[in-house]
């Protein structure tokens, strides 16, 4: 099995390096095909591992080599394939395989085709390291690796200012969180003496709650960055500057869920500190609502989907925070499938519309892009959580869990968010595929994507539809390592009322969205309508003014402070004082050199003056001799 592990892990790396070889060369198909094939290999290897685990329940654990070893610290490159990581591996390899194949078509005309695949495969490799590592340090490697690849891919079109800005923003914001993570890792090391999950979690059972709380908080800060939780969420929406396959893979399906994965992976830690769990859940619920609200009005389909991702991540954290780790992981998986599908569908639309992102400028595309429409609609249905698609099974169980755990506020928020989710998902579906063909006004000539791209998307479609049916198999598998809490309401009636109620609420939201946006009266908003002038709309469209305030109150002061540090403090104080000392010495020389006037008479006077000074010192000393003892004390200080 170790062989499969290595195949699964390293084929993306090989693919990446292969593509990198063509990095500076002109676009060539092979640079896309080979990595894709290697990824599929990785997928197959992962599947074999999954089968192995499903059948035997054995955990595959290898230690490749030592990475760092000094003092008591010992960090190997160790990989573990257990029920949790194999789930993640499946998600990652599957989605990325799909995205790779899709991207061969999507990036067809791009100059940086080869580079793109290199980055993309590198990302998969990092992600696999992240999920497969058996220690925190390895996790951190992957953690930073995905951050790096994300930077490279968001800024893929580096000639665009907005893209490079977004890339840097994503990277730096993640770094802030990584600092928390790093501190968390340090805490783990100094308190447990190891960074291996096994040893560390075992040792944690005996630690103070206070230390554990700090550990939990710092590790979660790391998770907040990667998973774009408030207040580190702004980068995710901006990250949509990257090519759409990237958004699908990284910013929807995999990387952003790393935070959830971390919490799930550390479930033994968080189980010991339920208070932090509640905080995580509350934050998750808040973000779910908060992101959904911004998605309501946004006029960029990718951003809407990004906010939706954010919102769903909130759901996952609610689950994880409440101790329903398997639920979180399950939603993660299901979400990966339908959200990737949604993004790829959006990619098709963009492709068709020459990268136009404003859904108000589309409309009626369903006629030319049937397949895409079907896929996106199904994905949205799944997202909205309509039975029997994947979202229903994963999302509703989170809402239930909140209810069961008696966190009614969270429950309420999640429920409302479910409605909002349905609304905004279908708002864009309606705007894009239905209603008037507004795009004609702008001279677009939409066309359906390549067949093979659609074929490539189909596995996701299938999974988005049927993932729910895998729930029980999945549950049995992961509960081998995760707490197997079942969230069942005590009363069956309540369960049915709640489930059906939720469904009806969601469906109503969908219908309302259709009613509002699928009709022919929709115009491209020009800022004149009453709604657009409302405070709430402005607040939402400006993302609660958070990016603005970051720019205004963090970035700009930082820049200004930097300049002040440089020009005022470093040059004018620190450096100037050094030069000042030199200047004083030199200036003393310039001023006193007049003493050497060259006139003999003056020279003689200096000599006599010297003598007189010596004599007066002699007299002074004669007087001072009476107070000899006191003076001696002072002098001893001088080293005399």
């Amino acid at each position: 099995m170790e062989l499969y592990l290595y195949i699964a892990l390293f084929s993306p790396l090989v693919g990446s390096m292969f593509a990198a070889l063509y990095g500076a060369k002109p676009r060539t198909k092979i640079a896309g095909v080979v990595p894709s094939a290697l990824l599929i290999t990785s997928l197959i290897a992962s599947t074999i591992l999954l089968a192995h685990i499903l059948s035997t329940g054995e955990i595959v654990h290898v230690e490749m080599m030592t990475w760092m070893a000094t003092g008591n610290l010992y960090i190997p490159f160790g990989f573990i394939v257990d029920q949790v990581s194999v789930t993640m591996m499946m998600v990652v390899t599957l989605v990325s395989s799909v995205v790779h194949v899709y991207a061969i078509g999507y990036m067809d005309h791009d100059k940086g085709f080869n580079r793109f695949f290199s980055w993309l495969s590198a990302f998969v490799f990092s992600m696999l390291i992240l999920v497969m590592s058996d220690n925190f340090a390895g996790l951190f490697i992957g953690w930073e690796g995905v951050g790096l690849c994300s930077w490279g891919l968001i800024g893929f079109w580096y000639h665009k200012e907005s893209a490079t800005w977004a890339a840097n923003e994503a990277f730096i914001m993640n770094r802030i969180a990584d600092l928390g993570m790093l501190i968390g890792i340090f805490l783990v090391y100094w308190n447990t003496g190891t960074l291996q999950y096994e040893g560390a979690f075992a040792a944690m059972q005996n630690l103070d709650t206070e230390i554990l709380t700090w550990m939990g908080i710092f590790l979660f800060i790391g998770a907040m960055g990667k998973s774009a939780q408030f207040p580190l969420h702004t980068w995710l929406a901006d990250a949509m500057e990257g090519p759409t396959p990237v958004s699908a893979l990284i910013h929807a399906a995999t990387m952003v869920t790393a935070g959830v994965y971390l919490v799930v992976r550390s479930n033994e830690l968080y189980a010991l500190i339920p208070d932090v769990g509640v905080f995580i859940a509350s934050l998750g619920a808040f973000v779910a609502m908060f992101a959904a609200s911004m998605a309501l009005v946004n006029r960029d389909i990718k951003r809407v989907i990004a906010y939706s991702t954010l919102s769903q991540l909130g759901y996952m954290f609610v689950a994880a925070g409440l101790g329903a780790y398997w639920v979180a992981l399950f939603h993660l998986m299901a979400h990966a499938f339908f959200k990737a599908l949604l993004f790829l569908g959006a990619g098709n639309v963009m492709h068709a519309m020459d990268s136009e992102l404003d859904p108000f400028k589309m409309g009626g595309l369903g006629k030319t892009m049937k397949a895409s429409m079907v896929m996106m609609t199904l994905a949205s249905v799944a997202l909205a959580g309509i039975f029997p698609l994947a979202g229903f099974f994963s999302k509703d169980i989170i809402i239930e869990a909140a209810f069961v755990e008696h966190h009614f506020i969270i429950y309420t928020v999640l429920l409302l968010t479910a409605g909002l989710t349905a609304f905004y998902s279908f708002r864009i579906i309606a705007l894009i595929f239905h209603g008037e063909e507004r795009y004609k006004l702008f001279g677009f000539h939409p066309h359906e994507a390549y067949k093979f791209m659609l074929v490539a998307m189909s596995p996701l479609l299938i999974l988005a539809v049927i993932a729910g049916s895998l729930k029980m198999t999945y549950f049995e598998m992961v509960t081998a390592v995760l707490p197997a809490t079942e969230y069942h309401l005590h009363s069956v009636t309540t369960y049915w009322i709640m489930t059906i109620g939720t469904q009806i609420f969601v469906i109503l939201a969908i219908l309302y969205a259709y009613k509002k946006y699928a009709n022919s009266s929709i115009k491209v908003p020009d800022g004149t309508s009453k709604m657009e002038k409302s405070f709430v709309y402005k607040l939402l469209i400006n993302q609660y003014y958070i990016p603005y305030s970051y720019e205004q109150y963090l970035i700009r002061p930082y820049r200004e402070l930097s300049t002040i540090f440089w020009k005022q403090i470093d040059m004018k104080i620190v450096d100037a004082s050094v030069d000042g000392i030199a200047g004083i010495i030199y200036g003393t020389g310039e001023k006193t050199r007049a003493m050497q006037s060259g006139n003999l008479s003056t020279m003689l006077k200096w000599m006599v003056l010297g003598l007189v000074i010596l004599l007066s010192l002699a007299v002074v000393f004669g007087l001072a001799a009476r107070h000899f003892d006191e003076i001696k004390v002072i002098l001893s200080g001088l080293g005399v």
Partner: protein
Amino acid sequence: MFEAIAFYLFAFLTTLMFFITVTTSQALYALTALAAGMIFISAFFFILGADFLGAVQIVVYSGAVMALYAFGMMFFDSTREVKEKQGNKLIVSGLSILAAILVVLIFAAPMVTDNIVALYPVIEGAGNTQQVGMVLFTKYLVPFEVAAVMLLVAMIAGIVLAGKKMDLSITLMNDAEIKDMKKDQNKKVLS
């Protein structure tokens, strides 16, 4: 009593003479005052029983040194009034008076002279010159000889510096000029 009168008298006279020496604007006055002062000093020597020293003082100073200075003065034509731009007189007098006061302040205290043993005691009955001779040619033989060397040095120095050869500076001449000069010298020798 006689000693006291003599002391004060000559003290006054020397001080006056030297004062004139350093303050007068007439070089000739200064020279004369200096010479007079020197002679008055020799009086102290006689009072103090240092006859040999007194004689030397008169011979060397009033004889040799003053003659030299007088010669120098004629050479430099310094008899005319010397214009001396004075800087700050306050500094000059201030410094000197301060120096005097400081030293006098200390000298006013009597010395502890218990442990002093005369190494070369004055012997009653022998003439001062004789005694000086004895010490000079035993203990101070080496300094005496070195003083002789010093005088030789001074002589050579005087001759060299005042000599004609200093009129032309080889240091400032380039090679061609030096050659010409050599030729001239040879010519002179030949002719």
